[in-house]
């Protein structure tokens, strides 16, 4: 392999005029390339061999020469072209010098093989992209229904109710006429005292961690205003019970349920 590469290197020193002109054309056309790999592929084609048999060393040589000439012509090269140049220079040295037993990392041959693989793969994808685009295409070679009939959407609405809805509805009707003396409406208020009164007898049963929301009294769980009041007072009452040493309290996370447990 190394032998061949030296051979290739010699060849490239005596570049025929035509090739040189082609290389100049490449430089002028720099904007037309889609990056260093594309350029390498184009350079590789001038070797007129199967990509699998391509001389990576010769390719590296061509690429470096290209970058050198571009610099002389003061053509701005994008960073990735220079990165590739540096890498190819490194690869070249690896391929030319006998392997250094001290140095680890991939051998020059491995690196060269991978580059050849990349070039072959890119070439293959280009060919297959062309094959794909050459297929019969919808709206060009074959056609869909030109006069589709709309599928009419029929919306059917079903109604539902729960037993609770039913009972609440009935309860609402039956209690509407009940006598209710005028009072400051404290209906939506559940005081801390009420919460304490409610929790004290119940807390004895809380052997396991229990969400404090389960201590909310009946009728204070659905209406938002009432639930807010009951939640606040139940929470305050819980803290009071913690202070008294009757229960433990915990919350796993911000906004997670607050849980209490009887302290034995």
């Amino acid at each position: 392999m190394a032998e061949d590469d030296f051979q290739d290197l010699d060849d490239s020193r005596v570049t025929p005029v035509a090739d040189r002109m082609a290389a100049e054309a490449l430089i002028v056309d720099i904007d037309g390339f889609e990056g260093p790999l594309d350029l390498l592929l184009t350079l590789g084609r001038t070797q007129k061999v199967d990509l699998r048999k391509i001389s990576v060393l010769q390719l590296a040589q061509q690429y470096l020469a290209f970058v050198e000439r571009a610099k002389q012509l003061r053509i701005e090269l994008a960073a990735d072209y220079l990165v590739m140049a540096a890498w190819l220079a490194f690869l070249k040295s690896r391929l030319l010098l006998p392997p250094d037993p001290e140095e680890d990392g991939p051998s020059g041959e491995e690196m060269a093989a991978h580059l050849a693989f990349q070039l072959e793969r890119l070439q293959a994808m280009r060919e297959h992209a062309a094959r794909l685009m050459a297929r019969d295409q919808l709206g060009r070679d074959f056609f869909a229904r030109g006069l589709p009939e709309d599928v009419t959407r029929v919306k059917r609405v079903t109604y539902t109710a729960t037993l609770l809805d039913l009972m609440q509805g009935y309860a609402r009707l039956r209690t509407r006429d009940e006598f209710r003396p005028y009072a400051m409406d404290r209906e939506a208020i559940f005081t801390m005292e009420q919460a304490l009164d409610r929790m004290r007898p119940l807390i004895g049963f809380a052997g396991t961690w229990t969400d404090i929301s389960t201590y909310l009294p009946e009728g204070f769980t659905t209406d938002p205003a009432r639930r807010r009041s009951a939640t606040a007072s139940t929470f305050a009452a819980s803290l009071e019970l913690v202070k008294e040493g009757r229960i433990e309290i915990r919350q796993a996370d911000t906004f997670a349920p607050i849980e209490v447990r009887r302290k034995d």
Partner: protein
Amino acid sequence: MTEETENDKESLFDAPPIAEQERMVEAMLFATSEPLTLKEMEDRMPHGCDAAEAMAHLRKRYDGRGVRVVKVGDAWAIRTAPDLGFLMEKETVETRKLSRAAVETLAIIAYHQPVTRAEIEEIRGVSVSRGTVDQLLEMEWIRFGRRKMTPGRPVTFVVTQTFLDHFGLESARDLPGLKELRAAGLLESRPPPGTMPQMGEGDQDADEESTEGQSELFED
């Protein structure tokens, strides 16, 4: 395909065999967005084609199929067979909560059955709209019961087996009584202050429905 061999005997520059012409009109009628006249088809087809004959063949071929070749004015088109129109409908089902008026009417019927419309109105304090009763009838949650032996012999309403099945009840007697409702805390629940129904709450139902979405939003 017999036509093909017949045709092959003739000159190379003749029109394509009729089977081929039939394929052509088929493809054109399928792909165009407007019905095509015979002339329009022939203009597109190779020289010497007879669209009329090709159409006659195609029409026969589609006889009894799921789609048909039909004449639209002086043009032709492919259309779904009329008996399959039902396939062109897509049904979507949306479930909505029953309105407050309907729930209350239903509750009264369930607790007081058999009950007349006048009795329902007396308990609710508002007139019962025809739509509400019709809706419950349509859902098959209520049905007409025996006529009452009172002047005018008014019809009564009772709940149905479908109703009992939906609410998981063995009979309407299993509905919790007032005492149980109170024990369950349900009798406490009054509308929040401010929205307390005043007299003449005939339009309450409408209000309720329009704010329903909002309260839902703020509840959790």
